[in-house]
């Protein structure tokens, strides 16, 4: 049992015993450490101005992740090394290749977003190696907003930075690993003070016991949602249980009944396995969940546990037939994912119960998985509507099975059961499509809000069936079925 949290910032090791459990990394860096290079742009994880790097030793591998400091709690950094913009120059004072490229290509104007961009770019080089296409750069920078440059010079800088070869961090990797190794003690952390309590269980059994003892404690994995309760809702969370580093919860396993994703697995970690199990052209949905920074912190199961009607994960997983695993003390139970969502803000989970993982069955060879997110902005936006489809065609052209789930259409992520009924067993042709479109009206009565009107949601929900038909219909997709696909098919112009 340890009663402190320990982590590095730059080269300095910090041991904290009294930091409030919801103290954000950004406030701590700026207000207590004087590291003012990291900026606050929105305080809700949407603009990326506060991007920092969190380096962890996982097995014997150093893993570099860009995260939004504004919605990370300091306590979540136990065992990690944080690098901020102040740490990016080489020790001899020369600029990092990313910094140099940003200067050379005029990637900054007002400069306020620039440190965040630099951090994302440094992380992008580490994470992706040196072979990234233009689309890869878009994805890498989707979580950083710039209002001045129009991004063009930043992308030019990134292209050049990727060609610049190794940086000084490569030479420091062994030292960094050794240092982080020394922080690894496998201990449970318990901190209790006037500003609240913090538990970091070392095992799932420990987590189960903690939750039984403190049913009102708030479980936090990546804090991409809970962080906003604090920074925007100003909520006080008297007891935080941080589960992000519990080894058993970080498992991604191929099991007989499907892909198992533990409760602390982030979207970024699960992405490749999910794309593998649920193949879709262009990885459409998985690469559009939040941004790199959000996917590096937010978890697949957190996206489920928070019960949001507009979470992007649940509709896809429901369509795929996922099962959710919950645990309460020593008692475990599983359920179809859609049954977990009872009503707006209400899930089938007892206070001392927690999500342990989710299993996604592997679709058969005759099943096509499609999921389309529709939002005002392509990247880093919240869905107006997300439609997910699992379509199994029989050899005779009949729809052997169909599962359809939508986000943004109701108070919870929900299946379109009337639509499914109108399709199941029918030949997949235009009359069936029309019948399905008509049935959709019986499935949902969506609301109007700042993201879209109910008319738009209803219309697009039906139109996504038409898109499904165009893509997975009897004739198959003969042409790109989305503007993104059509757009990326064309090469970069040689000029400028």
């Amino acid at each position: 049992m340890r009663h402190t949290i320990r982590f590095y910032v730059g080269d300095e090791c910090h041991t904290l015993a009294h930091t409030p459990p919801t103290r954000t990394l950004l406030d701590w860096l700026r207000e207590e450490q004087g590291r003012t290079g990291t900026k606050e742009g929105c305080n809700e994880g949407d603009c990326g101005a506060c991007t920092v790097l969190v380096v962890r030793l996982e097995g014997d591998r150093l893993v570099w992740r860009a995260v939004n400091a504004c919605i990370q709690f300091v306590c979540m950094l136990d065992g990690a090394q944080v690098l901020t913009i102040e740490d990016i120059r080489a020790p001899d004072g020369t600029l990092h290749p990313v910094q140099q490229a940003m200067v050379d290509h005029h990637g900054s104007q007002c400069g306020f977003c620039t440190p965040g961009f630099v951090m994302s770019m440094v992380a992008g080089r580490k994470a992706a190696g040196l072979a990234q296409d233009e689309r890869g750069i878009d994805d890498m920078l989707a979580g950083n907003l710039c209002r001045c440059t129009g991004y063009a010079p930043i992308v030019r800088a990134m292209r050049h930075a990727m060609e610049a070869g190794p940086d000084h961090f490569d030479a420091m990797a062994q030292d960094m690993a050794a240092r982080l190794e020394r922080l690894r003690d496998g201990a449970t952390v318990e901190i209790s003070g006037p500003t609240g309590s913090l538990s970091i269980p070392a095992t799932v059994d420990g987590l189960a016991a903690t939750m039984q003892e403190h049913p009102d404690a708030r479980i936090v994995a990546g804090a991409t949602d809970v962080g906003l309760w604090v920074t925007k809702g100003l909520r006080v969370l008297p007891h935080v249980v941080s589960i992000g580093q519990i080894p058993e919860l970080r498992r991604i396993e191929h099991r007989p009944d499907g892909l198992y994703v533990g409760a602390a697995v982030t979207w970024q970690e699960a992405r490749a396995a999910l794309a593998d199990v649920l193949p879709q052209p262009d990885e459409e949905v998985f690469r559009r969940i939040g941004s790199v920074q959000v996917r590096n912190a937010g978890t697949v199961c957190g996206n489920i546990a928070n019960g949001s009607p507009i979470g992007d994960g649940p509709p896809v997983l429901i369509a795929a037939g996922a099962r959710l695993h919950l645990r309460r003390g020593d008692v475990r139970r599983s359920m179809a994912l859609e049954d977990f969502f009872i009503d707006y803000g209400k899930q089938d989970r007892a206070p001392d119960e927690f999500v342990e993982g989710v299993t996604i069955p592997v679709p058969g060879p005759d099943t096509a998985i499609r999921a389309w997110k529709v939002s005002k902005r392509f990247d880093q936006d919240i869905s107006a509507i997300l439609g997910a489809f699992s379509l199994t065609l029989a050899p005779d052209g009949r729809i052997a099975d169909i599962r359809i789930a939508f986000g943004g259409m109701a108070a919870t992520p929900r299946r379109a059961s009337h639509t499914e009924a109108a399709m199941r067993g029918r030949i997949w042709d235009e009359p069936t499509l029309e019948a399905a479109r008509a049935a959709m009206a019986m499935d949902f009565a969506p609301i109007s809000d700042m993201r879209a009107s109910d008319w738009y949601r209803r219309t697009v929900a039906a139109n996504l069936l038409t898109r499904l038909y165009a893509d997975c219909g009897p004739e198959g997709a003969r042409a790109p079925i989305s503007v993104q696909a059509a757009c990326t098919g064309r090469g970069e112009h040689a000029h400028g």
Partner: protein
Amino acid sequence: MPAAAAIPAVADTIVPGGASRSLRHESAAMHVQGSASYIDDLPEPRGTLHLVPGLSTRAHARVLSMDLSAVRQAEGVVGVYTAADIPGDNQISPVGKGDEPLLATDLVAFYGQPLFVVAATTRGAARRAARLARVEYEDLPAILNVAQAREAGSPMVWRPMEMKRGDAQAGLAHAPRRLSGRMTVGGQEHFYLEGQIALARPGEEGEMHVISSTQHPTETQHMVAHVLDRPSNLITTEVRRMGGGFGGKETQANACACLAALVADRTGRAAKMRLDRDDDMTMTGKRHDFVIDYDVGFTDEGRIVAVDMVLAARCGWSADLSGPVIDRALFHADNAYFYPDVRLRSEPLRTNTQSNTAYRGFGGPQGIVAAERVIEEVAFATGLDPLEVRLRNVYGTHDRNVTPYNMVVEDSITHDLLPQLARRCHYAQRREAARAFNAGSRHLRRGIAITPVKFGISFTATHYNQAGALVHVYTDGSVQVNHGGTEMGQGLHTKMVQVVMRELGLGTDRVRITATTTGKVPNTSATAASSGADLNGMAVLDAVRRIKRRLVEFAAAHWNVGEDEVRFLPDGVHVGQKVIAFAHLTRQAYFARISMSANGFYKTPKISWNGDTGQGRPFYYFAYGAACSEVIVDLLTGEMKIERVDILHDAGESLNPVLDIGQIEGGFVQGAGWLTCEELVWDGAGRLRTHAPSTYKIPACSDRPRVFNVDLLENAPNREHTIFRSKAVGEPPFVHGVSVLQAISDALASLDGYRTCPRLDAPATPEMILRTVERMRNGPLPAA
């Protein structure tokens, strides 16, 4: 200007990086290292208080009571201040209308109006405390938008303007063809990455030093002086750099500065007010949204003969800058086109929403977007290519060259620019290709459009067209330059350094720019209207030439050569046959007791404008450009991508080509964002529902055009005598975003074989696009 005019330009070789050459942003190396300081990064004076405003939660209501006891008792709170605590005027109207209290008293006029300010030892404590206020309201009828304002009898924040030439009604009546329509254009949040912030430090005997993220330090100084009831000489405003402005800190910075100064004055402690993003977006004004009704007469050949337009704008609860903003919309409702008979009228409508304000383009883009809609209508009505219609209507050079405000366009180049860009980007072939694609595509459609911009340069309030500078040359030959303009990322400080470099033949390491402060250069104008480099550049040039004049006189006498034999070149100062270091000259000049400090001053010549008569020359010159955008649209969802953009832009003899290209690229994306993904949504109670980047979507990296070619027009020095013949470049490129809206419209027009104008309104969000698709297929939809 006498001193500047008296000295001929003597540098015949421009020092590398000097004015007219590319040079990177003066803060670039600091930006990338996080060492460029913004106000919140500065070390805080001991005991600094943190301020958070308490905002109204009604759009229009009488305040019956305000119970702040829980706020005062909250942990960490040092004080809570209301209008009653203001020693001077509780008034920050920037135009002297007296309609904008700093803190509301008995009446709130929009949802988000500051009622009080909390000062606490930490920002967190202040934020928590501010939410504990208990305010009782009695609701009053609220007017939230243009339609409601018209129903309520069109209350105005400013005198409406009528601009006319010829007889529009007669012209319309006799026109061979005529049509009318309506366009709505949304507003826009500035979304400067650094939010509003000010740090006030009290000094001796009523002095107040305010570091403010403001585009208009002098106005901020005056506002603080009025609020504190002090003379201006006690108040100093300073700004080193802003993390973006875009017009959003021209007047909107004043509230934070005044509240910080108020608390600093009341407590004797430093006070900092940094708004949370939600409070910032909820409190501050934005780009005006417009409803524009147009009536146009034209010939079968697509020539416009008469235009009648009414431009109505949601101005918000107070006048702010709405008057000149809406006027500028009228000034640009012709864009680059000659209207033989014309009448333009404005309706600056008062509403119970944020007080809309300056935003890059200052109403001009809204006028231009309407002009381009009219062109589009004529094109679809006549079956002509919109580019052809544009070319048939652009201003001439010798005739057809008088604007609706009776200014002769002397420098028109649109007739040349449009075809030049069309050739470069293969517009005609690509238009055919898009049509061929559309003929074979069920759900995806391509569109392409090419649009020009003609943008008037000068403040229409003539007295703003002045600037000052202060240049010091030290004995070691290093130079410090100060001027009245502010740096918000546009590179103004870089350009000012370049002016000095070019004049004195010095490298960047010898010329230092300092923070803008009212203590060094007084009575300045806002850095706005794209005028920063034009005005301040000439003032800096004037100052540096005054010093240069003295150095030349001294050197000629000291080394016994003719004054024309003293030249400041990159390798040193040429004095007759020998070359000496600039530092040597300055040291000798010091010993000879030569003053090496000077103020510079500049006022724009030729301009005058009488708003009452609608006569004069409001603009010194026009900046031009053209853009071609190609898009692809999904008819099932309304999703859209910009595939390719080509821009040819007129920056005159550019002061700094790389910075100007940066302004064009950034301006375009911001303009495209305004017309596509950026949507402001208020609910029925007048509460802004898009008050953070989670709900208000500015373009992200992948929204930039996949192919993006930007070129400066070459060999195009300004015909007017501007700073080294350059042209202003801040606002005009924003307008290039209009080509995206027109390209989307072109894609949608394929739905009926290009026979009718789709009348696509802005912002063209996926929903707006899908609604337009639905309307074109099945007729009008019920309102959203």
